[in-house]
């Protein structure tokens, strides 16, 4: 295997709730190669965000707890680090962008102040250096009159501009990895296109590796090199972006693609819908978590949870059924 920048192995995260323990992430393993953009796709509650938050030590504990797993970053296990150590990795070496740019920014501090803080904290810049760098960063993400706009407050920025500020903040300490959790979901399509274009440009210029979490397969098709699809806290399919869209092999991936109308569609047939709804796992599943909604499900699917197995080079699927033939794999 080529050198992995981030190597996650067997991650399991649980949450204690009044109704019982929710098994949010159930043994997730994947790696991020240098310079690549990895798309993590799934619906709400599939564990995609919790996986990344676990790796970064951002799971509120209690009620959450990372119960097993390793996450190697430059030879060090992020999950074994002390709070102080992981805090230094976060922000300095791994940058993050979240979905909602309004709640991620502090409304009573100026944009400049919020950009300068990590620079002084993590790299030890002086106030003056930090101010200059903050203006550079705003220019980098395409905000005009950057110097003047440093004194503005978040409410004076539009949604798209706030998300640009979040990206500038995540990039401020030149991280090796950028983790973007649904960064364009709250934005309009024309603004989403602007942000995706910006991230692609920065990826070239700065040579970052990116983990892009989203529920939108269209967005993934436009930005990722490789994709993992999650369901019920498991990775159920992993492939290069072209392979995934050309040969989707897990019934859930097939269902997701089928349920999307396309803006370039010609036929106006009925949409393919997946019956039922995503599971909340109060027990660690012993069967395939997708079996209740799967039209291919057979006896074995109800008894044993399939492992992620390769079906071709770099394409892995967790399913007992070969969806091309409908027979046992």
């Amino acid at each position, binding site marked *: 295997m080529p050198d992995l920048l981030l190597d996650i192995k067997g991650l399991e995260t649980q949450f204690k709730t009044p109704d019982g323990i929710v098994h949010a992430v159930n043994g997730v393993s994947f790696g991020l190669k240098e310079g690549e953009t990895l798309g993590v796709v799934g619906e709400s509650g599939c564990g995609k965000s919790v996986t990344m938050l676990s790796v970064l030590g951002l799971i509120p504990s209690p009620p959450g707890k990372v119960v097993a797993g390793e996450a190697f970053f430059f030879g060090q296990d992020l999950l074994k680090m002390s709070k102080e150590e992981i805090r230094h990795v976060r922000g300095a070496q791994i940058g993050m962008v979240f979905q909602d740019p309004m709640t991620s920014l502090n409304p009573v501090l100026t944009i400049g102040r919020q950009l300068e803080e990590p620079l002084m904290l993590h790299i030890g810049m002086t106030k003056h250096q930090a101010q200059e760098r903050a203006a550079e960063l705003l220019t980098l993400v395409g905000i005009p009159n950057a110097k003047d706009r440093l004194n503005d407050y978040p409410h004076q920025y539009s949604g798209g501009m706030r998300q640009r500020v979040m990206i500038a903040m995540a990039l401020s300490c030149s991280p090796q990895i950028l983790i973007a959790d649904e960064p364009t979901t709250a934005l309009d399509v024309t603004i989403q296109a*602007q942000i995706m274009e910006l991230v692609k440009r920065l990826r070239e210029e700065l040579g970052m590796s990116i983990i892009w979490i989203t529920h939108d397969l269209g967005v993934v098709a436009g930005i990722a090199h490789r994709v993992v699809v999650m369901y019920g806290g498991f990775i159920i399919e992993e492939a290069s972006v072209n392979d995934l869209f050309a040969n989707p092999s897990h019934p859930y991936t097939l269902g997701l693609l089928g349920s999307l109308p396309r803006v370039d569609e010609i036929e106006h047939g009925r*949409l393919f819908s997946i019956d039922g709804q995503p599971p909340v796992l109060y027990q660690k599943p012993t069967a395939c978590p997708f079996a209740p909604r799967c039209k291919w499900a057979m006896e074995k699917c109800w008894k044993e949870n399939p492992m992620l197995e390769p079906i071709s080079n770099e394409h892995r699927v967790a399913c007992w059924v070969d969806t091309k033939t409908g027979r046992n794999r």
Partner: protein
Amino acid sequence: MSTQDTNETLLKVEDLKMHFPIYRGVLQRQAGAVHAVDGVSFEVKRGETLGLVGESGCGKSTTGRTILQLYKPTAGNVIFDGVDLVALKKEEMRKTRRKIQMIFQDPYASLNPRMTVADIVAEPMMVHNVGTGKEIQERVAHLLELVNLNPAFASRYPHEFSGGQRQRIGIARALALQPSFIVCDEPISALDVSIQAQVVNLLEDLQEQFNLTYLFIAHDLSMVRHISKRVAVMYLGVIMELADRDDLYHSPFHPYTQALLSAIPIPDPVADAKRRRVILEGDVPSPVNPPSGCRFRTRCPIAEKVCAESRPDFREVTPGHFVACHLVK
């Protein structure tokens, strides 16, 4: 009632304007107005679905609400089945509302958490005094079956249902008075991808069964293309382009429609890479002080001097294809 398409106009909106006043100062003098809808005209034929798309803040939801007279329009006419709703008295309008219903965006906020499902679906019938208690009860059970919910769940409360199921409850409520026209205000944008297809398929089935007419408001252009017969594109309170679905998506005339369509991600990396993207600069201007002339000129890649001087007419360029742009010949 026939189930096939007729050419009869059910709803005609003429030069509709909705300005929300802004009051300032101690004396609360009117200091300006939000030009949410600023001169919108279109027709909806019986049995068809008209899609109304645009980015957030473009006035699409306000248009829907103003048609239902939930806001008193500043100017313009809304002619429904030959009657001008704007001129109706309150009591007459209340009676007319039996024929015009609405499905809301947020399935969490639009259902009263203290009412059972049976009470929620029965409420419109109680308000309009339709039928005896027993008849209403039977009708509720029938309505729940129509939207594929188990009538045995009628005594449960909304929090016991998932987002998709709640949206079905909202649809059952909208159908309770056997309306002929339903304003669907972003009915699927709060739902997960695999659930969206379920709800859209249901809406299509019901339309066929009851010869319903929909105004389908959404920001998701792919879904609008799937469900609508004709599509209107709004920007900053004005309709920029209106045409037959395939016509609009194949040969959009307006530069805004072109940019909007090119910004939508396609779940297909090969097709996505081949597309020509028009990335719009900047953000949507404020509707308090909209640009002079053409509303889109500040972001338009081909704007000329004339665009700032006068507002373009909304004219028919090819049969059934309306555009508001000076530069389209």
